[in-house]
Every structure is written in structure tokens, then in C-alpha cells.
């Protein structure tokens, strides 16, 4: 079994790699590789797409690697391999991003990526730090994670899915902010599981064991 963490030069994959390697060892889930090679993606059992920075930059960076997105799309959509998007990697599953103009997403989860509204009463944007999860659905990837468990967020935009059933978890920050989205064999976390200590490691282990 192989899990590939897709590298398209979007920031730091060091912690992501180490956390997945550790949990793969603990769950007996085979090996974890970091790669930008479409062949590696096509051969992988599970695909993780991280992403930090601006939506358009991430998408352009991903599309700039020849054959990479097509390999991801084929494995995830045609062949239904388990997929986890993290932060902007999760946002890109939506229909459209609105950071610095409109940029199309993958369209896997219908919805828009919109800016969190800074409100009164101490609502700061970026939404930065630990927030308490509210679970909207049960899901194998959220198993053992309790309402009120904390995850680490650092972002100004979030996915607003068109369909309520795609919203798996939220947090409160001037209103509900999307924390986890998903359908079928794909999930995405707005927070950083690789930075969320025990809660994050549990989610990673759940993903590595998940058989959708």
C-alpha cells in the first residue's frame, strides 16, 4: 500500500510527510511518498493534496506540472481512490475560488471558496489558531474525534458547499466556518492535521485506514 503526498512546490511538506509516515507505521498502512510524478499518483492507493498560500497560486502550481492533475483526477474520480485535501488542497475541490479574482476549482464539491467575514467583537482574519470542532455528520475519517476537540487553522478563506450533506464539520468564527468537507471517497480539511497534535494524528490514521 502506498500513500502519495502530492508535491507541487506549495510550501512545506516536511511536517505532513513526517506525520503521515508516523501514522502509517502505527496503523500498518504501508509506505508514504512525497512526489510530483503523475506515474506515482496513478500507482498510489491513497492521495493527499496539501496546499498553502493563495488559491490561484496553488491551482496554477498544480496545473503547471504536466499530467499531474489528470493523474489525480483519474485515480480519485474514475477509480475512486481515497483522497484527502488539506487547507488550500481542500479548497481546490470546490467549484470556484474567489481570492484575487475568480479561479476555477476541481468542481468535485459544488460550492465557492469565500473570505471569512471579519466581524465586530474580536473576530480577526486570518482565522489563526485552535478552534473547537462541531461535527455535522459521522464519517470514518472523523472516528474518535469528539465535538469540541481542537484543530489548528490558519486561513482567510473557506469552502461554502452548495449541498449541506458535503459539510462534515465546522467551527465558529464570526459564524460557521467550514472545517471538513467530503463525499464518497474524497475528504478535505481546512485545518492542518499535521499541525493539530493528537486530533490531527488521529484523523490521519483514520484516513490511512479508510476504505470508502
Amino acid at each position: 500500500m502506498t500513500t502519495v503526498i502530492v508535491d507541487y512546490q506549495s510550501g512545506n511538506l516536511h511536517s505532513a510527510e513526517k506525520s503521515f509516515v508516523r501514522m502509517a507505521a502505527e496503523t500498518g498502512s504501508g509506505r508514504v511518498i512525497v512526489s510530483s510524478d503523475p506515474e506515482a499518483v496513478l500507482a498510489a492507493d491513497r492521495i493527499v493534496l496539501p496546499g498553502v498560500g493563495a488559491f490561484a497560486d496553488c491551482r496554477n502550481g498544480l496545473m503547471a506540472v504536466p499530467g499531474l492533475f489528470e493523474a489525480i483526477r483519474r485515480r480519485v474520480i474514475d477509480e475512486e481512490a481515497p483522497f484527502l485535501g488539506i487547507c488550500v488542497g481542500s479548497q481546490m475541490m470546490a467549484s470556484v475560488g474567489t481570492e484575487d479574482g475568480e479561479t476555477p476549482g476541481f468542481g468535485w464539491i459544488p460550492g465557492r471558496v469565500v473570505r471569512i467575514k471579519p466581524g465586530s467583537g474580536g473576530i480577526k482574519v486570518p482565522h489563526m489558531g485552535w478552534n473547537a470542532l462541531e461535527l455535522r455528520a459521522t464519517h470514518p475519517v472523523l472516528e474518535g474525534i469528539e465535538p469540541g476537540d481542537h484543530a489548528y487553522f490558519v486561513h482567510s478563506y473557506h469552502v461554502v458547499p452548495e449541498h449541506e450533506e458535503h459539510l462534515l464539520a465546522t467551527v465558529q468564527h464570526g459564524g460557521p466556518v467550514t472545517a471538513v468537507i467530503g463525499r464518497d471517497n474524497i475528504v478535505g480539511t481546512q485545518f492542518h492535521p499535521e499541525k493539530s497534535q493528537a486530533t490531527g494524528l488521529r484523523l490521519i490514521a483514520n484516513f490511512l485506514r479508510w476504505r470508502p
Partner: protein
Amino acid sequence: MSDTNLKVRVIPCLDVKDGRIVKGVNFVDLVDAGDPVEAAGAYDAAGADELCFLDITASTENRGTLLDLVRRTAERCFMPLTVGGGVRTAEDVRTLLRAGADKASFNTAAVANPDVVGEAASRFGAQCIVVAIDAKRVADGRWEIFTHGGTRPTEIDAVAFAKDMEKRGAGEILLTSMDRDGTRDGYDLALTRAVADAVGIPVIASGGVGTIDHLVAGVKEGHASAVLAASVFHFGVFSVGEAKARMAEAGIPVRL
């Protein structure tokens, strides 16, 4: 802090010189207090919400030592790490992020060349760009930015500068009172509040923590989104856990 479940962060800061932890009292009299990677692991286990490394060597020759430190810390600690000191260009930010830092902090460079903040934010996202502001009180309700370890006045107003940095794309302000740093007399609450209320991005209070009540005041009176301290944690005056428990008693939302 209504209408959010976001917690106030408690951030131990490790001042690092040549790969070892130090903590300056008013930026002189450095005392060696151990290995940063070991300390990072201990703070991770103790429930710290983030870690901050401040490289006070900041010389080009020793940059490799810092990057190695960041790399080894990121391998061990699955928690957010901010690195500051010697960050001058967008390329410096990239190097740190690639090594495993989650955020990079500009200090002097942002004063000398504010455009670098916008450049770095547009390349890597506002969420990973911190601007560290070292401010000294110069009159009632007025604070001025000092650079080069607090030795050089700039005549730049701290509040106006913070607003400008926000506009340019900074994701967070790390605000240190040069009057209080190393004194253990508590944060400069008026300064903290003036900046925190002026910007829509999070402000980390820094400089002067001696007691847990200082952390509480930094949030309640200073309106800080996060509280940073160094020596009180390193020398065990109180632990991260004790700090958070008392903050919770005082009605501050923390992650326990």
C-alpha cells in the same frame, strides 16, 4: 471574543543563538538554557499552542544551523512553528517554509523595505507572514518602532506601522514592548490594546511577562489574540499548563 470558539494561544518563544536557547534581559546578558529541539518537544507535550524561534544570531554563516534546527523540530513536533530573526527577503521566507516553519517573521527588514511584506504575502499567503514590531513608549499614547535589537529609533509610529503592514498583507503582528522586555513587569497593555484594536489581524503580545496574571491582562486588557513569553516558561516560573488553567479560570477561552 464573542461569536467565535477560537482559543487564545499561549506561545513559548525560544531565543536561539548558534543553535542554542538563550534569553536576553533587555537584549543583553544572554544565558544558555538548552537545546531548542528538546525544549520544543517538551512544550509540544505540555500543550503549547504554537512555538516561536527567534534567531538572534541572524548572521549568514550560521543560517544553516537554524534551518537544521527548524527541520529537526518539524520532524518531531506536530504543532505550528514561527521563525523570526534574519528574515530579509521573500526567498528567506521560502527557505524557512521549506525547512518546516509554518510562519516567518519579518522585523527590521519590514521597516527598511515594507514592500517585501507584500511580496512575500502574495507569494506564500498572508497566513504565513508575521511582522514583528519592537516598540518603545515615547509619549503618552505614542510608541515608536526601534530596530536592530531595540537600539535604533526610527520615528515610525507603531500603530500606524501595524496598520500599514496589515494593508500590505501581513497575517499577524508580533508586538514586543522594548520597555518591558526582560523586566517581568508585565506587557505594555496600552500599547498592546492600541495595536490590537487598530488592526483586523491577530496580535501576539510580547515582552515583560513575569506572572500568569500578566498573560490574563494581555488578553483582557490588551485585547491580544495570543500571548508570548520566554524566560518564565524556560526557567519554570510557571508551566504552559498552569498558565492555561489560570487563564481559563479568568474566563479566557484556551485549549486545555
